[in-house]
């Protein structure tokens, strides 16, 4: 079948250097103008307000304590994430049971529960009378630092599992087999060879979990009690620009420093691979020890991650039987606002996902193919991460300052979209640029020698090979946008579903109604995720 003329024209255009460069330049400009600079400039514009904070030593000390608490929580959480996430990924990739596929899917659940809902769910499970506390009479874990750690562990655990499952699947098993044939016990082989080679992925998973913990606001607010970390401090002082700017600035600078240090020193970090304890490691490699390790990992996953994350759905079942469902579906009373907020959330999620795919794709290719040379590509690669590490509430506040002070004519919905674009952009570019990097350049060059134009090569070679990663990136963006609470709260007065649920919690809406509201959100996100997964799996993967 002859190609439509328009396709041919586009193919031809894509081979023109000027067009290609223009696309890359526009993509870079959009990245700086829309994604990276507004949150930073928002803070810089109000730089002078920091003076107000320095005049209040008590406030400075509170702010610094909050920041220290943020880093302490993030460090503890991401370390524990790695300790339990790596064995979980190992079990999923190396086990033989068919149930491991189910376990793999279950490990994504905390991704799809909106963070505010997740926070509420954990609160119900650990602290409220209907949860674990009913067994003990008093709150099992009261709101505070321990509950924050449990919460952050629940939502960042899937990040580590996802990254490590991918890394272990890509890993060339022969290295480990070679080690075993040379006499190494399974634990020795894993420690001295597998994880020594996969060190970058372990570091990446730690970094992502660390960043996620540092920046999370929505859910943390629900479980914090009197505990104050960076994002909570910002939320508590949202009307005091100086305090907001001060904490945001320090958080951004410190976290950037941490990540640059990890990036630069991570590759030089020598893991203890030379020293071997053959007898001890042999004893620790027995199947009894492996079974115990798997049991502990599963127990932690179910008790600390999965059940608390889904606990909120239990009142939803009760609500169905109590006859609240018809009322909810008819949109009466509270539910009218609820469905409006749901529509808004999914609309924003869809728009943000589509926009980011369009503006992020050229950037992903630029990074993946090092179009700007090694040095510049690495710098851009690092800059892309920044929006992940800024606390979402600070990012929202900063964006609100930047856009409303300079571009007050911009409608509120666009502020919301811009905020979500910033927050979700790194997830897509990260995932897609890694996928592009993995595709052998020879394949694209083979396409060129056969006469294909760049756009044709992308459509027929690069895209089919990278589509799963593209989909993963899109899923992460979509779920992140739909569940985003912290930035949404401060950037506009529009009420998305997570914001509405936070309001319901604050105003003491009945548990069953709240549970049903959360249940719908989880159910819809789960269905969308499932459809996207089925679409991806229905086609052949390479």
């Amino acid at each position: 079948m002859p190609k439509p003329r328009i396709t041919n024209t586009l193919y031809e255009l894509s081979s023109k250097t000027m067009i290609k460069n223009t696309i890359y330049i526009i993509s870079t400009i959009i990245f700086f103008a829309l994604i990276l600079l507004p949150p930073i400039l928002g803070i810089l514009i109000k730089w002078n307000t920091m003076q107000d904070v320095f005049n209040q030593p008590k406030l400075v000390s509170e702010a610094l304590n909050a920041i220290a608490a943020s880093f302490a929580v993030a460090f503890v959480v991401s370390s524990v994430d790695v300790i339990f996430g790596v064995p979980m990924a190992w079990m999923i990739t190396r086990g033989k049971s068919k149930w491991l596929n189910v376990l793999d899917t279950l490990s994504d659940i905390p991704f799809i529960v909106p963070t505010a809902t997740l926070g509420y769910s954990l609160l119900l499970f650990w602290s409220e009378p209907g949860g674990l506390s009913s067994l003990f009479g008093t709150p099992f874990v009261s709101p505070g630092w321990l509950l924050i750690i449990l919460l952050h562990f629940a939502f960042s655990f899937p990040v580590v599992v996802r990254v490590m499952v991918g890394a272990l699947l890509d890993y060339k098993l022969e290295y480990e087999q070679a080690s075993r044939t040379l006499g190494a016990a399974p634990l020795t082989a894993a420690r001295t060879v597998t994880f020594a080679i996969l060190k970058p992925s372990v570091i990446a998973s730690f970094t992502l979990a660390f960043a996620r913990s540092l920046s999370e606001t929505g859910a943390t607010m629900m479980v914090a009690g009197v505990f104050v970390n960076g994002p909570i401090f910002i939320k508590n002082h949202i009307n005091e620009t100086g305090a907001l700017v001060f904490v945001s600035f320090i958080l951004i600078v410190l976290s950037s420093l941490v990540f640059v240090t990890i990036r630069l020193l991570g590759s030089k970090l020598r893991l203890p691979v030379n020293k071997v304890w053959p007898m001890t490691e042999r004893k620790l490699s027995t199947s009894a020890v492996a079974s115990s390790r798997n049991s502990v990992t599963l127990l932690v996953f179910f008790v600390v991650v999965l059940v608390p994350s889904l606990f909120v759905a239990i009142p939803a079942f009760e609500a169905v039987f109590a006859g609240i469902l018809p009322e909810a579906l008819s949109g009466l009373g509270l539910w009218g606002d609820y469905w409006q907020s749901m529509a808004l959330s999914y609309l924003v999620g869809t728009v943000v996902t589509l926009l980011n795919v369009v503006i992020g794709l050229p950037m992903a290719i630029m990074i993946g193919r090092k179009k700007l040379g090694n040095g510049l590509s690495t710098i851009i690669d690092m800059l892309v991460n920044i929006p992940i590490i800024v606390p979402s509430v600070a990012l929202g506040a900063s964006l609100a300052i930047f856009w409303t002070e300079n571009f007050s004519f911009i409608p509120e919905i666009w502020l919301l979209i811009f905020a979500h674009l910033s927050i979700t952009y790194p997830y897509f570019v990260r995932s897609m640029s890694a996928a592009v990097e993995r595709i052998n350049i020879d394949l694209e060059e083979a396409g060129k020698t056969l006469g294909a134009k760049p756009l044709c090569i992308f459509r027929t070679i690069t895209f089919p090979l990278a589509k799963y990663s593209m989909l993963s990136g899109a899923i992460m963006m979509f779920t992140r946008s739909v569940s985003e609470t912290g930035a949404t709260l401060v950037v506009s007065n529009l009420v998305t579903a997570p914001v509405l649920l936070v309001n319901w919690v604050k105003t003491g809406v009945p548990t069953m109604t709240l549970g049903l509201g959360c249940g719908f959100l989880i159910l819809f996100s789960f269905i969308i995720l499932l459809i996207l997964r089925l679409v991806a799996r229905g086609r052949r993967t390479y």
Partner: protein
Amino acid sequence: MPDVRLVNVTKKYGKIVAVDNVSLHIYDKEYFSLLGPSGCGKTTLLRLIAGLVHPDEGEIYIGNKLVNDVPPEDRDIGFVFQTFALFPHMNAWDNVTYGPRVKGFNVKKAETIGHEVLEMVKLHQRLDAYPNELSGGMMQRIAVARALAAGAQLLLLDEPLGQLDAKVRNDLRYEIRRMTKDLGLTAIHVTHDQSESMVISDRIAVIKRGRILQVGSPKELYMAPKSIFIAHFIGESNFLEGYVSSINGKQLTIELRGGTEIKVIQQNMRKGEGAVLAIRPETLVVEKGRKKKRNSMLGIIQRTTFEGTNIRYEVKLENQDLVVVVKPSMIEEWLNLGEKVTVNFSPEKIRVFAYPEAGLREELTVE
């Protein structure tokens, strides 16, 4: 000492039978090759011996010990992978001394072994080099040195020369054999390259579709192949189809297509039975002109190819069959394209096989 015995070993991957009821005995200090086309199950067989995969049925013995449930680290083997699998985060020295270290040897002993094996592979000067800084040949030597340093008496090599260029490959295959013989090791070498297995092995097992077709010395396999496939896969053969037209004691008369009769020596064939003659190209004598006589056919040179050592002729016979004839290029007088010739057969050098049930083409299929 490590002889290796496999008794009725089967390994399946889903519905695919990779290794099909294989029994095999590899003797102590023997250099043994598993030879077969891609996908025939030879690498699976080697991995079964190494303990990297487990048999569904059957027993594997190393020495006198049943090793079915023994993990690879306790089998006392050295394994050289096709891709070498040198640990990318360790330099040559750390790679080579990895085995002694994980086996708990003291530092001094590990270092002594490291120096010895690196001396053996002549790579002492590249101790600090990382795998990505080494050439293919060097990586291969380090991989062998690493396997030897672990102190194993049984060396398993999975297409160890497959990734090297022809010249390096030729040099290294002699070197590997020399080293294993010097050290008194048993070696099992997987390859799909029949010329490699011929020069390196004491004995070869030819495998097709998970089954062992024949085990023998390179000479036995070449001179006395037991099947059409082996006559085809080991070296080169011409195959001519016909049937047994008469039997006189051990002498059979095979009538080829077009009515030409060839006398051959063979037992166990019945009159009227379909037959395939397997004839090595170098056993055919080709002479100028048409001189019809017993055990000969007339033909025309259809193609000549100069191969350096040999010159190769493709001759179209009078019955339209095509045969290849190979002659030493520096000794014999060259024939010209289109020249009319007589091709003479030597009955004692012809192997006769019953016509295969699945057809000749299927029997010759390599994949």
